[in-house]
């Protein structure tokens, strides 16, 4: 009689967490997953995560999460090495997906900033622009937010483990507001809100507490900024205010939308 052999559990996929120019808030979201963290650690080998362990293990990694933007010549080198070591590369947060708030310098004089901020600017090596990771290497999935949403991070990891597409919708914050039963802050209170042009993902956190969305998840999959701007003006914002409202954590992404102007009015309509 043959003895049934217990199948060996397959090796766990290896996780690497990296950062470039960023505040660490997005990668710390992983440690904030208190209820799920043990399960994540059981399903994935957390091989490289300096915020959690001082013993980083070398690649290759099956799943890599990267926060931060490409901001220095050294980042350019590092992101290529990280990509080469990553089977799947997911960028997390506004810095990694849009260049972050540090991309404000893309529209200013970097030399002038250096001279103003640093006593010895010659020690600083920086690029003229802060750019998203997708500008330099292929990215498998971009998770938005400043910071990212914990539930969405768990969903992306879970989807990776199951080999399916993450359930991360592309629509506007208005969808989340209406599903939550929120009263629209713009229509009922005249509060300026970027919700109609902002990517969902936060669960409409700000409008739920009666304030306007300030766009920390960047533009939604489809936007019509020229239609929204007059409402913000009506509700008391000057052109300068609106510029500041749009140019925060996702400055490059909203600037791209501003430059794109009105959405296309023709399409090759298929059946239906």
């Amino acid at each position, binding site marked *: 009689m043959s003895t049934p052999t217990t199948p060996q559990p397959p090796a766990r996929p290896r996780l690497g967490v990296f950062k470039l120019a960023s505040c660490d808030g997005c990668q710390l979201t992983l440690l904030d997953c208190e209820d*799920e963290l043990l*399960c*994540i650690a059981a*399903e994935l080998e957390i091989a490289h995560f300096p915020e959690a362990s001082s013993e980083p293990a070398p690649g290759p990694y099956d799943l890599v999460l990267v926060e931060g933007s490409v901001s220095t010549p050294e980042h350019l080198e590092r992101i290529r090495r990280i990509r080469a070591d990553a089977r799947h590369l997911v960028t997390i947060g506004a810095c990694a997906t849009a260049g972050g708030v540090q991309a404000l310098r893309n529209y200013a004089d970097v030399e002038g900033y250096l001279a103003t901020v640093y006593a010895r600017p010659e020690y600083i090596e920086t690029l003229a622009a802060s750019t998203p990771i997708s500008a330099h290497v292929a990215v498998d999935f971009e998770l938005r937010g400043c910071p990212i949403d914990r539930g969405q991070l*768990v*969903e992306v*990891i*879970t*989807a990776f*483990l*199951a080999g*399916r597409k993450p*359930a991360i*919708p*592309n*629509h*506007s914050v*208005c*969808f989340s507001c*209406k*599903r939550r*039963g*929120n*009263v*629209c802050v*713009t*229509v*009922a*209170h*005249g509060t300026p*809100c970027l*919700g*109609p*042009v902002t990517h969902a993902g936060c669960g409409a956190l700000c409008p739920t507490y*009666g304030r306007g969305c300030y766009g920390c998840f960047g533009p939604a*999959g*489809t*936007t*019509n900024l*020229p*239609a*929204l701007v*007059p*409402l913000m003006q009506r509700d008391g914002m000057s052109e300068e205010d609106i510029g500041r409202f749009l140019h925060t954590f996702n400055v490059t992404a909203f600037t791209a939308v501003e430059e794109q102007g*009105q*959405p*296309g*009015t*023709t*399409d*090759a*309509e*298929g*059946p*239906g």
Partner: protein
Amino acid sequence: MTDASNAGGVFEQRAETVLDRDGLDVLVRVLRRRGRTVIGPTVRDGAIVLDELDSADALPYGWGVELEAGRYRLRRREDGAAFAHSAGPQSWKSFLHPERVRQWSADRGPDGAPVVREEAQERISYAFLGVRPCDLRAIQILDRVMSGGRYRDPTYLSRRTGAFLIAAECTEPGATCFCVSMGSGPAADAGYDLALTEVVDDAGHRFLCRSGSEEGAAVLAELPRRSADDPTREAAAQAVSAAAERMGRSMPLVDLRTLMRDNLEAERWDDVTARCLSCGNCTMVCPTCFCTTTEDVTDLTGDHAERWRLWDSCYDLDFSHLQGGPVRATPRSRYRQWLTHKLGTWHDQFDSSGCVGCGRCIVWCPTGIDLTEEAHALHREAAHRERTP
């Protein structure tokens, strides 16, 4: 109604009676004692929303609304009326067709094969207090959509079957209302268990009440009431007929179905596209928009999976995503889809218009797109085209 199909049908309407404010208090108590979850209008976050009522005290006594395209404001009313406000940010759809429903879950069995567990339907016995005639019509439309055809939605049926509907006839239409154009108000003709008409005048604050079902009559019998007097009857009839004359909006007097069908390439679609945010608010607040998407989720172990149904919208780019991309890639095609379905092809699908004239989509569109204005513009453009061959 104990049977949704019995909507105002065989039951013979009983004589009208009059309730005072304390009659409404007792009404809510009686319904709660009967195990009903009473939902009605109440003030929250600067709007008259629909929520569970513990007592009739939570009704928006003394609150009215000022409505315009893209604008909603509460205002105080001197007369203390409870139902003198028009449609708010939600509709009864939120309760009958919830935004998020788990449809089934599955766990990996001992042999590795998934064991699927159908979702048990939660039995909720609703009483809806203050249903406007336009919304009464909307519920009848949803009945056809969700349970009238080959596929009957168990979630909808479990919430709708046996729901007790108390209509409040409309005496205060908003600037965005056009139920008269859609033939759905301001009087409640059928589909209710009780119908109220609020009257506030020198003779006091009272509600002319009639029952529309056996259960409605039974509930009414438990309330402190008096038989209807002629002045109250006349005041109620006058208030409702005056409401019909005070509609803030109207549809063009043409066959809207034909108007939609024959103007798919109108230039007006480009004009409205410039104003449309594609935010989906109009579909979410519409009392008849029913579209959903499906989301399959797993847990981290992969041993547990769930299927959820969520409200979706034809304005979502992913809504028409097929192999190779979205069919309706431009905002123009998405707005056109919504309007032509609502006013046109809904007839082909469900034998009626999908619009009841409640005006919610006009009010809650941040940029104030007004479907009546769009219909008028399409009509004008078509007429102009005919005149200039």
